[in-house]
């Protein structure tokens, strides 16, 4: 089986950490690199976090790139958990591992151009604001041709927003970048809050992450306990969402999800900037530009995430500790 080559574009971020770990734990995926963007936290903290995560997984061979420090046009906003900054060393150990010299934007563009010329296109899992990817698409006209698909966590359609009443964070943080990427012609799979809010992780899952002694599973459990994502008023039951890992899960087991092709768009300005719309019922004359997910097999998703991450870096992690 040929492994699918992917880039993770990310602003780690707790649920970003779950996505990165899930990808690293999945032999079906060939992770070309992690392109970091400012989002949940500032760029420097995001880069630090990405480096800590790959180092903990014993995967310093996966290059980390630093990208855009802020959105294209609008003023910068950070995530609800911006105060996290870089993960405390007590949660994810310190590392001297650092990012590459070249920018995320150039990395994405060059990977895509290489992929286009080889005829083996790359998949991008976009789990932060889309600033890096938008800039890469504008660098050269052929960049889009090298991208097989963008699997994005973002938007809120049937669901209400979480960063503001009307908007999901990744889109809200850079709506202009979303406008560029969503209209680029690159096939898009979208995991909006509509679906990510359907799978809630509880203490039982956290214990599952730790069960086999994986350093990554333990770190993720610690992060999830420290930054409690549960919202019983909103969900009506205990537990919190791990949004970003759904993009990786879809690549591994697409049949866990259900959705439909439709036209989607974003409001760029005015009081509801960052609001996303989806044409569920064909009311617009816009052609579908995204496969929008609306349902998930909650149990299947949780089992996939927990089982894979619980088994991550068991041997290589021990080897690092021995050394």
């Amino acid at each position, binding site marked *: 089986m040929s492994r699918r080559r992917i880039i993770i574009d990310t602003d780690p971020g707790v649920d970003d950490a779950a996505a990165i770990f899930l990808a690293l734990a999945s032999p079906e995926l060939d992770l070309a690199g992690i392109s970091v963007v400012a989002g949940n936290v500032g760029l420097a903290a995001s880069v630090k976090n990405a480096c800590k995560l790959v180092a903990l997984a014993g995967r310093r061979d996966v290059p980390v790139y630093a990208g855009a420090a802020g959105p*294209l*046009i609008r003023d910068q906003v950070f995530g609800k958990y911006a105060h996290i900054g870089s993960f405390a060393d007590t949660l994810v150990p310190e590392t001297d591992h650092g990012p590459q010299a070249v920018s995320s934007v150039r990395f994405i563009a060059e990977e895509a151009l290489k992929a286009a010329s080889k005829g083996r296109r790359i998949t991008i899992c976009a789990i932060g604001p889309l600033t890096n990817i938008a800039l890469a698409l*504008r*660098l050269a006209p052929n960049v889009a041709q090298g991208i097989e698909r963008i699997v994005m966590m973002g938007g809120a359609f049937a669901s209400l927003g979480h960063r503001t009443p009307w908007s999901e964070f990744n889109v809200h943080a850079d709506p202009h970048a979303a406008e*560029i990427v969503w209209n680029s012609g690159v096939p898009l799979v979208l995991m909006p809050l509509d679906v990510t809010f359907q799978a809630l992780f509880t203490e039982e899952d956290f214990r599952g992450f730790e069960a086999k002694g994986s350093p990554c599973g333990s770190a993720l459990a610690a992060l999830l306990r420290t930054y409690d994502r549960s919202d019983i008023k909103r969900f009506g039951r205990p537990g919190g969402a791990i949004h970003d890992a759904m993009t990786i899960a879809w690549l591994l087991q697409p049949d866990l999800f259900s959705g439909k092709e439709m036209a989607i768009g974003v409001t760029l300005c005015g009081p509801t900037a960052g609001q996303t719309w989806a044409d569920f019922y064909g009311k617009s004359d816009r052609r579908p530009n995204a496969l929008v997910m609306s349902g998930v097999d909650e149990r299947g998703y949780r089992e996939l995430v927990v089982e894979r991450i619980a088994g991550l870096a068991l041997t290589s992690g021990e080897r690092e500790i021995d050394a």
Partner: protein
Amino acid sequence: MTALPIIIDCDPGIDDSIALLAAFVSPELDVVAITPVAGNQPIERTLRNALQICELGGRTDIPVHAGCHRPLLREPIYGQFHGETGLGNTDLPLPAKQAEAKGAVEFLIDRLGEAAQTGKRITLCCLGPMTNIAMALRISPGIASGIERIVMMGGAYREPGNRTMTSEFNMLVDPHAAHIVFSSGIPIVALSLDATHQVILTPDHVSAFAEISGRISRQLADLMAFWDRNQAERYGSRGGPLHDPLVIAWLLAPQLFETRRARIFIEHESELCMGQTIADWFGKSGLEPNADIATHVDAEGVIALFLERFSRYRARSAA
């Protein structure tokens, strides 16, 4: 005298070409590179035109880096007054000179980054939509400190627009890019329609240029003749406004210009006024000025300056 290092970011374009040809024979200016962008014409043509003009001017030593193929967000629009090739009816051979392998955005990041490190800052001349520099600033914000200033042709403050009611072409093509530049803190000198509409290149001027410009005489006259808007009710006479060359004129002879400091803004949200530039003449915004806006130009002085410069092509042909 050390020459002022400049990068010319442009979309040739007839008036861009006149500006380039003037810069080529000005030893006060060290043209480090030319970075064409999509604007008056699609990128394939602005790139080809820049290469052709380098060859015409005998400056094949200047590296040319191909820039962005389209604006950041808005759909591309192109110029209306530059003919099919972008250079009017001017007949130029296909260029032998090639663009550099490195794209304009990467070049700007690398070269301005180096300038930021060494402190030997570069003046950036923006004669077209500002997509290239906006991209570079968003990818590598640190390059701002490698830019001495941006001398730009674009905008319309007290004048109405030239592409829409409110908006000058370069600004309308990529208002988001202009917003990024205007918000960057980089000092700006703005040659807007307020200034360029004061310098009309009349048919008499064209004849005078044709007479003195030696070996490029025929091509320069063709470029300039095509530029005649034939719209006396707007410009006061036959001829066309000398937009982009004013950037070079300001670098060579700033005493020919009166400027006024103000904060400049651009509308990038409203469809009606998209691309409109606004100057805060009276400190209403509460923000510091970011630009020196040319308000008055000694038009005769500018024409005399360029006549003297273009006469140097006579000497060059003799050489």
